[in-house]
């Protein structure tokens, strides 16, 4: 993010913000909700906003937070159920190294989630070749 955005975005750059369904930030009003023009699916952050926040975090010297927000930007496209499945697979003793490798490959392929895939590959490296404690 080369452009320096002024934080908080909600106050300084509302024009740059959209809801996941494309609604303008300033149109996300109580009326929009009560009249059914917006729903819970609109009350979510977008990949674009997360990347802007990552840029702000990095400019403040917070590399790890920025990387987290960049992974988060990738995960905005991943459905909730899949997220819970990935989390479960990453817990100790749940998945083999191969299974984690496959998970990483799928994230790359289906969602272009390169950074998240890299994190999962690292987890795979730290996982024994065979399942550690089968249950």
């Amino acid at each position: 993010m080369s452009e320096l955005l002024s934080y908080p975005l909600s106050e300084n750059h509302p024009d740059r913000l959209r809801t996941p369904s494309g609604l303008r930030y300033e149109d996300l009003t109580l009326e929009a909700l009560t009249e059914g023009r917006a729903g819970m699916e609109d009350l979510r952050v977008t990949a674009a906003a997360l990347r802007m926040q990552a840029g702000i975090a990095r400019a403040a010297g917070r590399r790890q937070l920025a990387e987290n927000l960049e992974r988060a930007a990738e995960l905005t496209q991943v459905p909730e159920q899949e997220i819970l499945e990935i989390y479960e697979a990453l817990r100790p003793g749940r998945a083999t190294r191969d299974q984690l490798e496959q998970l990483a490959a799928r994230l790359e392929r289906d969602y272009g989630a390169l950074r998240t895939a890299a994190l999962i590959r690292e987890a795979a490296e730290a996982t024994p070749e065979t399942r550690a404690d089968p249950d």
Partner: protein
Amino acid sequence: MTSKRSLARANRPIHSDTFIHPWPEAGLVLFNSPYDPPASLRLENGRIIELDGKPEREFDALDRFIARHAIDCEAALEAMALEPRELARMLTDINVPRTRLVRLCGGLTPARLMQVVAELNVPEMMIALAKMRTRRTPANQAHVTNRKESPALLAADAAEAAERGFAELETTVGVSRYAPLNALAVLVGSQTGRGTALTQCAVEEALGLRLALLGLTTYAETLSVYGDEGAFRDGDDTPWSKAFLASAYASRGIKVRFTSGTGSEALMGHAGGKSMIYLEARCLLIVKGAGSQGVQNGSISCIALPESLPGGVRAVLAENLLAAMLDLEVASGNDAMASDSDIRKTAKLMLQLLPGTDFIFSGYSVMPREDNLFGGGNFDGEDLDDYNVIQRDMLVDGGLRPVPEEELLAVRRRGALALQAVFDELGLPPIRDEEVEAAVYARSSDDMPDRDVVADLAAAERFLREGRNGADVIRALARRGFRDIAEKIQAVQKLRVSGDYLQTSAMLLPGSRVISAINDPNDYRGPGTGYRLDSERLREICDLPWAGDPRTIGRPASEQPWLRPAGPARRGEDPREVVIAVGPAFGSALDATLRGLPHREVLAALIQGIRDEGLTARVVKVYRSADLGAIGYTGSQLSGSGIAVGIQSKGTTVIHRRGLAPLNNLELFPQAPNLTLESYRAIGRNAARYAKGEPTRPAPVVIDNMARLKYIVHTTILHRREIEQVQAGRDAEEVVWDE
């Protein structure tokens, strides 16, 4: 044989706490265990190949994660070359800016981090924490729970907590299936009053994530990490699973902080002989490496374990400081019972309260202890007035404000009513009017009517299954006339779209404005810099509802003086008279003693006492002085017997005899609050006996060492009123009054 004094001490609450000597092999050691590794770091092509004495091939999963993600290799060369003491000095040096230290600390290994903080004593750590915490403005978090999981009470308590200034509210469950309803109740309450707070519900990770995705919570905190691989595994996670979870929350715009704390590894049997602070430093590097913006630490639920050891409270401050040095938001514990002793609990609190942290408590129990489902807070609802007084005493911002009773009742009622409407709109088991009413005035859930638990649990499961969410809640509120609450919840949820509260140490201000370490960075550089109370906040902290207007203290009930002057006092000739000399405000500008005894009754008691001994009393009023010695002395000069009782309007009394120096006396009764009408009558009797020349046993006085504490303000003000009535040129006068 034990002395009675020792027995009295043995019965004090402090002896309910447990104290032990260190035992390094069991991990019961705070700093510098003989089994801690040496601090070291070796780099090769920008890659860490040795960490704290361990070569890369021997790295465990935690070492690998730390080496890969947490330590800034560019800063490491410079930082690891500095002596720990040099870094420690920089931490306390106001001329070394925070930004420079953040950079250097980012290059330190766990063992070196421990060595640096080990150099500091408590006040040095406090200065360092004031400088290193991420957000300039300190804040506070509340725990809101109750044993009955009463939704109306949760909503009322959440509303009160936000009204009192808590910036975050954390709830949890006794029965986990209640989670959606508890989260809902706290969400509605949190936006009811003038306050605005982020809310969370501490439950199992997957359920917690689901609640947040549904918009029933806005942040998560209980992502626990450990400084040992075995403990991590027992916690059913790895650094990577936690890092993934952090990204998952952020992907939905939900704020996250991790949890760690000294003692957890020892408790789980995984300390491996390492010191608690070394292990905590590893935890914090994992938190940082995972990209969490912050951490809840300060031993948390293990607090009594480090506190059993010498330096335990200092160590807990050290771990808070370590987190701040790593540029993490710190919610600094104080959330679990740290002691049975109020003295010890308060002393411990000062270490976080005075320097200020991002969240001083990671859960101040706004309810009475028995309703706290987190296991009891170190401070609870019944300590809130004390807490507000401490803020006022120290002029320190502890994140809270005192709130007048009527405002609390109003906001509690509205929170409960709003939730009642939401339950009705969403088809949840009804909240009856009597529940709303009980929630407004309840002390604890004991005061709440029972609910149909089976129906509630079934409804909670259905609610989750149907995916009812924050938008449904907002719509329900808007439909039922709670538009203001609907708007505030909507505004908080809307902020998710911006991701603004994902930045380090984010919190909301009224008006749903976000501040964080980005737009409110801590810029402390010594006196005159950093966070200071502005005039508005100062007024708020100082304005205790029960602080009185000193100008009204002691004002007489009637404007009409009851005791009236009746011409110059004559010099008495009758040896059987005792003069009662009263101060210049007696029965006029003042009408009662410090104890609150009406002057009329006090005077009657003195006269009765003199008459009991067969003598007569004559009353004169002294105008020249408010000093008791001078009043008594003047009386004795006018008394036919030479004996006088002198009394100030506040009730302090002396028996004087002509011929004694003004400041000498026969008997002095300096503690007016302890003098009853019976005492005054006894004083009258004794004065008469002195007049008759009979042997007299001094009237007994009660010694109450609390009297000065209780009455000094009133003493000062009543005495000032007496002095205002002094007329330097006016002689004493006879007085008259209506019987």
